[in-house]
């Protein structure tokens, strides 16, 4: 029993490690060009290199009236879109948004997105707060 005590203690310490900090890093943010008053979609890679989970709660950009975390879904062969709610970013995980799934929808763009342009987008996290990332506007047929 005495020998088991240090093991119990070690387990307890390991469990406490879960209470560390998230370490959110954003990268590979891109969007296709848009036209007229059409909304745009931004795809971002979120890396949580920390030891605690975090949650993506929203987004905003000076370049658009509204930025929303959206989810495209295929329901019985029909493409639908809905608000994604909060997205969990577990400790040590990487979430890469790809076309046809989760994206940041930009509604009311100040100007249409043009290939070669870049602008700043802020993603809001429950623990890590506001994190800024630069979005590159790619060619339409990219990815």
């Amino acid at each position: 029993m005495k020998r088991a005590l240090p093991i119990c203690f070690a387990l307890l310490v390991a469990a406490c490690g879960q209470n560390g900090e998230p370490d959110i890093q954003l990268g590979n943010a891109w969007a296709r060009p848009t036209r007229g008053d059409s909304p745009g979609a931004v795809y971002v890679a979120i890396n949580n290199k920390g030891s605690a989970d975090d949650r993506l709660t929203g987004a905003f950009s000076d370049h658009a009236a509204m930025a929303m975390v959206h989810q495209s879904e295929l329901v019985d062969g029909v493409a639908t879109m809905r608000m994604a709610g909060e997205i969990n970013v577990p400790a040590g995980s990487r979430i890469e948004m790809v076309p046809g799934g989760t994206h940041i929808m930009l509604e009311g763009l100040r100007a249409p997105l043009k290939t070669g342009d870049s602008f700043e987008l802020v993603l809001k996290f429950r623990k890590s707060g506001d994190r800024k990332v630069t979005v590159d506007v790619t060619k339409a047929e990219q990815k």
Partner: protein
Amino acid sequence: MSLTRLRLLLWLMVGAVGIGLVALVWRQSDPQRSASTSLGTIGGPFTLIGTDGKPFASSKLIGKPSAIFFGFTHCPDVCPTTLARLTKLRKQLGKGQDAFSIVLISVDPERDTPADLREYVTLFDTPVIALTGSAAQVEQVKKQFGAFSRKVEQPGGGYNVEHTAAVMLMDEKGDFVATLTPEEGDQVALDKLERITA
């Protein structure tokens, strides 16, 4: 129930299954039945409006296979992604831009004017035929192609359009051959495109 009666009943059931199987095989081997599928009902002649604002008759698509997609220009994710995929697949196929036509039919004729569509397709580095029309014309074409769409009001004002995600592949005669869906891999898609452009 006596054991003999039970045994008889079980044998009767085996017999019934046997008759069912024979009937099934006979039905499938019937050449007339396997030759007639309902694929022929998808598509058919239609008239919409081209990006030049003039009527566009579907007969202009005949002579070349085509990939027809129902979408709209205010669609941020799925539509540009589908057009990007078709652009990429047409390049990968390696038969040039004339191998098949990429056709976008607007399911949002209320907002998509010919000029909007003209500007939209120039975003893609490849020729895309974009069509719109009156609400009635678009409804009619949707019905012919078995395509679905509906307007969904958005909380912040404005609306989104939910629509069939599959691309309809038609051969050079304008007959429906297959669909391309977002879920299937690029290899499956390329095999289908290879088939319609053979």
